[in-house]
């Protein structure tokens, strides 16, 4: 018994210790930047649909660059959970990852290879916003994106036309519409937060609408305080619409909330397009539409949104970097994105010259909505330290349980205290 428990408590630390022994800190060395031959590609695209899309992409990459690619697919969550030891151990030549602080964090510690030379060739394909989200904190490039998707308010066209609702563009219109829906017996806003991250999207958009992009990013990077009255405003606005949100959100998975929207029990739902649209059955997809989150502060209007970009990084310890860079050069083109999006119908490409003739209605509108933004954030859990994102997610669940003023201020204080220990 002693063995069992002491072992269990201690074992958790073992992988980390082993990792410590095997690594010497890196520090931007260019170990993996040369060498040619076959490459391996670590992929977390484990769902059947994305796996198929990724397979198409790598086949196209092989035929364009004549580099043979062996794909190692790992379950999405497992891949994410193991990333620290993966990058320090024997990583693949290339692997899937996310833009934002999540990428910059590993780049800053020398675990990712710098790919400025790749961007010399593909830079002209992308706009400045995409370029900046592909850079590390040191201003060098470490990431090549493949797609992104917007966080917007989804609704059913048939519901809006049969009840005579119109798309709200301001906060007052939005709350009035929610009130009307409630009167009409609908759940105004389908809402779920059992997985902890979905409600972070609402925090992000309210912060972006009320306080703007710069403040949001400062908050995410610990340059602004969670006790700031600006954050209080975010929670107060949220508390205003919380009575119109589906109750019991902390116990519901987002797929069930999306079902409520699809079944027309709910009027609206704020979530990412590659979640809601992907969850809709083909028969109902034509009825699905969305609008950008309504404006709150006229200074910022509808200028910003969360549009997380997924893409690829080159681990510093990967093999055959020369071939890997050739593949990245291919991936950073319009045709590569089209190849990927042939089967993935919920995301949109980022290349400026991309051929959009294969897009469905949601994709076309997504691309327009993202292009209309002055700047896009990645997402709460991608723009900040993962520990801080987890702290905020737990506090938001507390807020959903009790949106009173006193609880809001205790949440803000706890967030600020935890930020000190996490970033300190």
């Amino acid at each position, binding site marked *: 018994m002693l063995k069992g428990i002491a*072992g269990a*408590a201690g074992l958790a630390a073992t992988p980390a210790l082993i990792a410590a022994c095997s690594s010497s800190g890196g520090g931007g060395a260019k170990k993996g930047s040369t060498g040619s031959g076959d490459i391996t590609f670590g992929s977390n695209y484990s769902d059947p649909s994305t796996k198929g899309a990724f397979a198409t992409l790598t086949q196209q990459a092989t035929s364009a660059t004549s580099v043979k690619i062996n794909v190692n697919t790992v379950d999405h969550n497992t891949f994410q959970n193991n990333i*620290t030891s993966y990058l320090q151990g024997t990583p693949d030549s290339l692997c899937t990852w996310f833009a934002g602080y999540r990428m910059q964090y*590993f780049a800053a510690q020398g675990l990712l290879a710098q790919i400025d030379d790749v961007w010399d060739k593909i830079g002209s394909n992308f706009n400045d916003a995409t370029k900046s989200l592909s850079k590390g904190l040191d201003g060098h490039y470490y990431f090549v994106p493949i797609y992104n998707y917007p966080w917007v308010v989804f609704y059913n066209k048939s519901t809006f036309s049969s009840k005579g609702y119109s798309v709200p563009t301001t906060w007052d219109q939005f709350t009035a519409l929610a009130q009307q829906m409630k009167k009409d017996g609908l759940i105004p806003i389908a809402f779920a937060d059992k997985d902890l991250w979905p409600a972070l999207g609402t925090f992000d958009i309210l912060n972006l609408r009320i306080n703007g992009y710069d403040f949001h990013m400062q908050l995410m990077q610990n340059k602004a305080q969670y006790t700031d009255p600006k954050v209080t405003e975010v929670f107060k606005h949220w508390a205003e619409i919380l009575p119109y949100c589906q109750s019991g959100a902390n116990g519901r998975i987002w797929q069930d909330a999306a079902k409520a929207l699809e079944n027309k029990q709910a009027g609206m739902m704020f979530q990412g397009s590659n979640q809601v649209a992907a969850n809709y059955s083909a028969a109902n997809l034509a009825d699905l539409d969305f609008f950008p989150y309504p404006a709150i502060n006229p200074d910022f209007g509808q200028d910003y949104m969360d549009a997380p970009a997924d893409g690829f990084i080159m681990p510093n310890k990967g093999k055959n970097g020369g071939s890997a860079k050739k593949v990245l050069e291919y991936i950073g083109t319009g045709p590569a994105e089209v190849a990927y999006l042939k089967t993935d119908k919920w995301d949109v490409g980022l290349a400026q010259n991309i051929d959009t003739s294969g897009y469905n209605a949601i994709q076309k509108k997504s691309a327009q909505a993202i292009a209309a933004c002055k700047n896009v954030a990645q997402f709460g859990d991608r723009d900040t330290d993962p520990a801080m994102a987890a702290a905020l997610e*737990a506090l938001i669940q507390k807020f959903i349980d009790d949106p009173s003023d006193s609880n809001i201020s205790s949440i803000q204080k706890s967030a600020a205290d935890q930020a000190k220990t996490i970033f*300190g």
Partner: protein
Amino acid sequence: MTLGVDVRSSDREEAQRRRPRRKRGRRLLSRRDKVVLTLMLGIPVLIDLAFIWFPALGSIVLSFTRWNGIGGLHLGKTCQPPPAPSVLQNGCFYGVQNYHQAATVYPQFWPAVQHNLIWLAVFICFATPLGMLFAVIIDRGIRGSRIYQSVLFLPVMLSLALIGIVWEFMYSQNLGLINTVIGRNGNSNAIDWLGNPHLNLWAVLVEATWRQAGYVMVLYLAGLKAVDPSLREAATIDGANAWQMFWRVIFPVLKPINIVILVVTVIESLRAFDLVYITNHGSNGLELLSVLVTNNIVGEISRIGFGSALGVVLLVISIVPISIFLYQTFRREEPR
């Protein structure tokens, strides 16, 4: 070995005997014996050191550091207070800061300790006695006892992760069996079994009890089958009723199995993890120390030092029942 028994008799004798005994003992062991002994003792000791003591002590050392798992440890370096950016402050000596932060700033810590204790209490006061009750009833040979036995044992054969998923369907707000049966699956009146922080711990404890009771039942049933039937006969002749027979005769005879069950119960409640992790990753009312350790160490969060500190707290809590158990076991063996 024989050495130990003789040495006990008295101190003076021991002093006189020690030298010659040792010499004789050494002579008795051939080279081959020594090799065998070394291998048989050495390999388990090495395994024990490598897989239990090294990680356990490693956790304790790490709990005094601030480390994200990237790069090496610099135990000589003390972490500087802010404003240095966090990425640069890595692998440094952090004193008791991790423990201090857990107790003061980390909002999940105290609820987790409380939930671990509730879990233990429910298992000892409810789940285990329930399993024993099932065993006693089935042992009386009621009609269809084999069917009950199989049905009650079925949950034990499922993995805890699977049990979590099965019960998720039962507890689902709008689509779940329980809310549908009691007519509370509407949009306004649905009971949020797994999301409401005042309810979800108890809901998950029902899941855990569902399995634990079956597990205890099987262990106890095995014990009951081994009870000498003549004891029962004698008790019946003496006019004992069923209640007296169990508590005065059967229960005392089953002392060894009772201890096994107590140990199993404590272990099962301290290692509780799977159900809450499946349900909501141990958040919002379902915090447990094991989950907090995992959440901080495994995955992207990588606060290895902080997570290790939480692991050490769990270790300290575990040591209490372990010590009691070991003390009890060895005390009983001494008189023999």
